[in-house]
């Protein structure tokens, strides 16, 4: 039971102690992802040979600190959901390493998948499809616990606790089936199920996107409250920029399988560095008919990830694109030396881009 004593409010009334699993201490990032890559082969041609690949995730790396919420944004097809699935190993990465609180995942000395998934859980967008229609809510939640070797009685008690935690009265709900619940209630069950094994990291992949606005706000409040009470860390993936701004501490922007910008939420939203982030942020619709948008901030759709453009992948839609952008792929770097990093030649001193300047912090950024 020792692994269930981490949170400040123990699920089973256990005394609040520091986690036995918090091995690296507060300074050790909970998750370090380095250079993960996934190419999906497209079998084509008469002999079924893998001729081309969809480069869904192409060398993505980032860290997640303990207790923070990392938001991940990008258009459809940018690889944000594939990244999530790679992290929890629903898909096997082609390359790259994942380190969970100092322990590498997989490999001879690393964490096994079972150990990792006890600490990392995921909530998906489609609340109905991610529940087994033939299991009651109670069975849904206890299933994973029993698979982890927890006895029936303890599992049943835990199910009650987590249902309470997500605001569903156990005596009313635990014998119901998924089809008897509303969308918001189903998503609460999914959250409860994820929390039942007492994870440290919860990956929320578009977890509120399918909900109605009034219900979305309830679930967002719930997630916030749970994070505080259970000392959770979130990776929050969404296409909704307003929601990401609301929940995140730091935000990661993806474009065609690459990380193109990463920074603290306020800096990134107020002074986006990458032209794509800038365009994405100005595409947000206002809540006032007085402030309508007159000109689309970005033209065209994201290109096909099968044959991404050479060099910088955004250059085909970029208003700053120059010769250099087609020849050389920009690397993530911090133009101002802070925590805000960007992969763009126009923001990298001495890159050869005319907007970049030569060196030093003399660059002026357009204000959004």
């Amino acid at each position: 039971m020792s692994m269930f004593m981490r949170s400040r409010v123990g699920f089973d009334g256990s005394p609040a102690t520091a986690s036995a699993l918090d091995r690296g201490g507060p300074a050790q990032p909970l998750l370090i992802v380095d250079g993960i890559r996934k190419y999906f082969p497209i079998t084509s041609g008469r002999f079924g040979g893998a001729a081309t690949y969809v480069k869904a995730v192409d060398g993505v790396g980032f860290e997640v600190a303990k207790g923070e919420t990392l938001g991940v944004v990008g258009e459809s097809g940018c690889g944000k959901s594939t990244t999530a699935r790679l992290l929890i190993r629903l898909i096997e990465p082609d390359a790259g390493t994942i380190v969970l609180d100092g322990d590498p995942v997989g490999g001879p000395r690393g964490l096994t998948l079972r150990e990792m998934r006890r600490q990392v859980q995921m909530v998906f967008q489609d609340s109905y499809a991610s529940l087994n229609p033939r299991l009651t809510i109670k069975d849904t939640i206890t299933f994973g616990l029993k698979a982890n070797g927890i006895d029936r009685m303890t599992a049943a008690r835990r199910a009650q606790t987590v249902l309470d935690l997500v605001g569903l009265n156990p005596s009313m709900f635990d014998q119901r089936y998924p089809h008897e619940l509303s969308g918001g209630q189903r998503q609460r069950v999914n959250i409860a199920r994820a929390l039942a094994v007492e994870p440290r990291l919860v990956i929320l992949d578009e977890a509120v996107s399918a909900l109605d606005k009034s219900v979305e706000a309830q679930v967002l409040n719930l997630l916030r409250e749970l994070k505080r009470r259970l000392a959770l860390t979130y990776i929050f993936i969404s296409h909704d920029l307003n929601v990401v701004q609301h929940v995140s501490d730091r935000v990661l922007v993806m474009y065609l399988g690459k990380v193109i910008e990463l920074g603290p939420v306020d800096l990134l939203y107020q002074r986006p560095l990458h032209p794509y982030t800038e365009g994405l942020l100005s595409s947000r619709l206002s809540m006032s008919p007085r402030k309508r948008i007159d000109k689309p901030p970005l033209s065209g759709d994201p290109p096909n990830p099968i044959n991404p453009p050479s060099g910088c992948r955004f250059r085909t839609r970029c208003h700053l694109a120059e010769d250099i952008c087609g020849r050389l792929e920009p690397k993530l770097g911090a133009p101002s030396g802070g925590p805000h990093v960007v992969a763009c030649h126009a923001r990298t001193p001495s890159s050869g881009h005319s907007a970049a300047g030569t060196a030093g912090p003399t660059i002026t950024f357009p204000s959004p």
Partner: protein
Amino acid sequence: MLKLAREKMSATARPLVEVSDLSVRFVSRDLDISVVNGVSFAVAAGEALCILGESGSGKSVTLRALMRLLPPIAQIGGRIALDGRDVLALGAGELRRIRGALVSMIFQEPMTALDPVFTVGTQITESVVAHDGVSRTAGRRRALELLELVQIPSAKRRLDAYPHELSGGLRQRAMIAMALSCRPRVLLADEPTTALDATVQIQILLLMRELMRDLGMAVIIVTHDLGVACEVADRMAVMYAGRFVESGSALALMERPMHPYTQGLLRSTVHGGMRGEALDPIPGAPPDLADLPSGCAFEPRCPAKEACCATCDPPARHDTGHFIRCIHG
């Protein structure tokens, strides 16, 4: 095309779309649900009405009732007049003639609304030939014009593309082109941008705004997204449990919402500059239409309810173009 459409919108001063006391019930052996319970509105040429609501509020069913695109178990009551014609009295042949020519619809998911085994050009040509009785060559010429109208780059090449060969944004443009192919005077759009990315969504909304202005159609858009409504609507109507609970000009509704549900919806929508604050959601969930509470349907979730709300029907009031169905306000 522009000229023709303008000529068509000519003389009559009465609104193009007039709906009064519309009700839709789905009735079968084991089902009896009132989905729309007495909705009335009018839309003039050149005007855009946005119907806002959550899932299950009856907004899509209302829209589909205007074209009678509902399954046979639907019983439609009330009156629907499009350009003075009583839609509910039309026979099958007449109905087919007005669909596309007088009124047409843009759907949410272009991949399922377009036929995957025909090229975009063929599909548009087919509807032009069927309605206007022109030759296939003329129909194809018109299809090209339409793709250009909706700003599809290299339109000529795209005529021979199958829907799956187009990106989401281009597919949605192709569907708009098809909806416009027979110069409808009333355009209906059901969540036209919900399936699209933000950067593409704004392109489509701007295109729709431009087309609305140039072609002078009456437009009705159904959406759950306040941002989308703010971008395109002249007037907005908020729907809850099969009824309009509030309607008025877009500005009035967004800046001075009067119904507690509208107010709650605005409060609970996440927008910029709210980082870390607790949100103020509407408690509970939308009601089950098969089991509507008596009195005001919003009463169980309403922060401003009073004793009589649970029993008596909320009064409907008009106040200089602003409509509200509530005892308050």
